[in-house]
């Protein structure tokens, strides 16, 4: 089976080498042209992203292709072959198919589940199409890979962002408040994590930002950054009446928010929900506050637990994705294996035979009471017609199947005569059993 893949990725090559063989979108056509010079009479495709650089080739004989690809790399990128050779991996046939499907689904990326790769593969495919060196095999291969990638994206959650402490805090805020547009957030202290979280929240469209800090200038500076308001540290418990989300991480050795304070605040808020995110160590907020009605206090451990839980689920989703990819690879391979001349010829013959028998039956029925001689004449007519019409096409089929673009031909014939996979496969199977029987004999 004539599919070959030679390439390198973020695991096999360091960035210094990867950047040497990267091809930008605008350079792709000339790269493809150079590649085709070193790989004549073959289907070619070049996939180049920040994570990987891979060359896909489909040709009748693969023996000399690897050298061709290496020479292309040496020439086009002016690279030391020895250096490259150590980083390059090679896959053939089923392994190549498997690899491509996984790559397109995002399973081979640095950030597993990333969705950018789908678009990148699509771009590489379109560039190769425009270059007109794509044939049946690579065309169908990449279409199937893209379809599988799309399935993985819609049917699993691997495309969801990997969770972090700050993203979990944002998700939680949304789960408590729903829309955040009319909500107010208070950021206490200048801890890095709390500001990362605040930025996250602001990005999702929080209504108002209030900042407070022991140092008034720091507070002003941050308030300006967030286009919010700064308040005095001494007066800040009062401001809690109007804030819905509080993120705190000061270096205070003892809690700066006590139970009594919050109890009072909740009375003033008429029990409107309050979400406290305590990212400080030692903690800034008295932990018993969590038991107050409609107060939700989460510290850094709690958020990390949320992250761990999400990661567990991602594992499951990746598992699901692999399952989908495996099934799609199988489907592609079935199609590919059907591109064999003998089963197709047999399937074509049996299809024609079926039609002949049907029409013969109808004709005989219409003729009604007819003598044996007449029946034999009609039968001979139908058989002669079918055989003569099919003779030349089948001879051609057998010949063309052996040529470099043979698979192309076979695929076309499949389409032309409307043959489906099951017809061809049953022929291949019966072929196999018959061969086994004759070998035993």
């Amino acid at each position, binding site marked *: 089976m004539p599919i070959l893949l030679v390439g390198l990725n973020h695991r096999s090559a360091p960035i210094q080498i990867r950047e040497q063989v990267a091809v930008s979108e605008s350079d792709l056509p000339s790269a493809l042209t150079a590649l085709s010079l070193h790989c004549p009479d073959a289907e070619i495709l070049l996939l180049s992203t920040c994570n990987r650089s891979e060359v896909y080739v489909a040709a009748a004989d693969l023996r000399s292709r690897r050298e061709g690809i290496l020479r292309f790399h040496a020439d086009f990128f002016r690279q030391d072959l020895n250096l490259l050779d150590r980083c390059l991996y090679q896959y053939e046939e089923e392994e190549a198919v498997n690899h491509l499907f996984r790559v397109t689904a995002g399973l081979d990326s640095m950030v597993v589940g990333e969705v950018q790769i789908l678009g990148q593969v699509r771009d590489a495919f379109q560039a190769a199409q425009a270059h007109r060196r794509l044939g049946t095999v690579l065309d169908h291969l990449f279409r199937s890979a893209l379809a599988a990638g799309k399935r993985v994206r819609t049917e*699993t959650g691997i495309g969801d962002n990997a969770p972090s402490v700050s993203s979990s805090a944002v998700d*939680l805020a949304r789960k408590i408040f729903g829309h955040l547009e009319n909500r107010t957030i208070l950021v206490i202290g200048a801890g890095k994590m709390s500001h990362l979280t605040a930025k996250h929240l602001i990005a999702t469209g929080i209504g108002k930002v209030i900042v407070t800090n022991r140092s008034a200038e720091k507070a002003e500076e941050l308030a300006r950054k967030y286009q919010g308001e700064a308040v005095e540290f001494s007066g800040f418990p009062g401001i809690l009446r109007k804030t819905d989300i509080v993120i705190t991480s000061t270096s205070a050795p003892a809690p700066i928010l006590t139970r009594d304070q919050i109890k009072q605040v909740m009375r003033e808020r008429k029990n409107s929900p309050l979400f406290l995110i305590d990212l400080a160590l030692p903690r800034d907020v008295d932990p018993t506050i969590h038991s107050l009605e409609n107060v939700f206090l989460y510290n850094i451990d709690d958020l990390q637990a949320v992250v761990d839980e999400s990661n567990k689920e991602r594992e499951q989703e990746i598992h699901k994705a692999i399952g989908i990819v495996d099934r799609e690879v199988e489907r592609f391979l079935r199609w590919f294996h059907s591109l064999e001349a003998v089963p197709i010829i047999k399937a074509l013959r049996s299809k024609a035979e079926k039609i002949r028998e049907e029409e013969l039956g109808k004709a005989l029925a219409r003729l009604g009471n007819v003598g044996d001689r007449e029946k034999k004449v009609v039968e001979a007519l139908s058989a002669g017609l079918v055989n003569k019409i099919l003779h030349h096409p089948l001879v051609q089929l057998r010949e063309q199947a052996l040529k470099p673009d043979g698979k192309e031909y076979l695929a076309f014939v499949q389409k032309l005569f409307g043959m489906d996979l099951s017809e061809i496969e049953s022929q291949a199977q019966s072929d196999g059993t018959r061969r086994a029987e004759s070998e035993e004999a």
Partner: protein
Amino acid sequence: MEGISSITAIISYGLAFALYTTELFTGKGRSSLYAHALTGIAAFFHTLFLILWGLRIKACPLISHVEAIPFVGLVVIATYFYVLVRYRMLGLGPHATFLAFLSLFLSMVLPKATPSVPGLASHWLVFHIAVIFLSYGLLAVAFSTATLYLVQEKLLKEKKLGGIFRKLPPLEELDSVVYRLILLSFPLLTLGLLTGAVWARQEWGSFWTWDPKQTWSLATWVLYTVYLHSRVVMGWRGRKTIFLVLIAFGALLFSFLGVNLMKAGSHQFG
């Protein structure tokens, strides 16, 4: 034909319920879409059933409790779809389909009412019952949403933020929907109470007889009023208001079903 409609509806509701429940507890399937479709189909046959029934007895099928129950079930489903579309409120599927299923099931199992007691065909009565049961359907969904609120709140408090937590809507949105449904149903409830009194005057000569049904209906109305007052006028939020919703619904159930089981008072008509 009636029987077939009813049975089709019941089976569809049952299947939808199963799908909604499994989707709530397991992965990221698309089974909720199938569940929505099944619920829609069930609702169609449910409506058909009520129409055919009405045509058969040549009257509006709202006179006796046995006939009223499936009507309430249909209102529940209609409210469910409204809330689903307008507020994207997921998670109510199991409740809604269960209530609708129950409503049809009960109507098949409970003994049917004897044909109209004379004097019960008054327009006031039909209007009273229709309005009351419309509000009951809305309040049933409000109750379901309130229970979801309590579930979410508990999960948040216990910091168990797994699958179910993620599938259910945000806390504040649940609270908001509870409020809106009760607000929406309140004029209907009030109107129902008033028209009931008018009809009582017509039938028994006095607006208020303090029979158990009227008393409990009034209690229900008062409880919902207290809820609205504390939510709107006083601005309160949180678990206490939700508990009020649960208690109020308890009173509603009692006035709807419990009183009849006691078989006392002038509200009895089979």
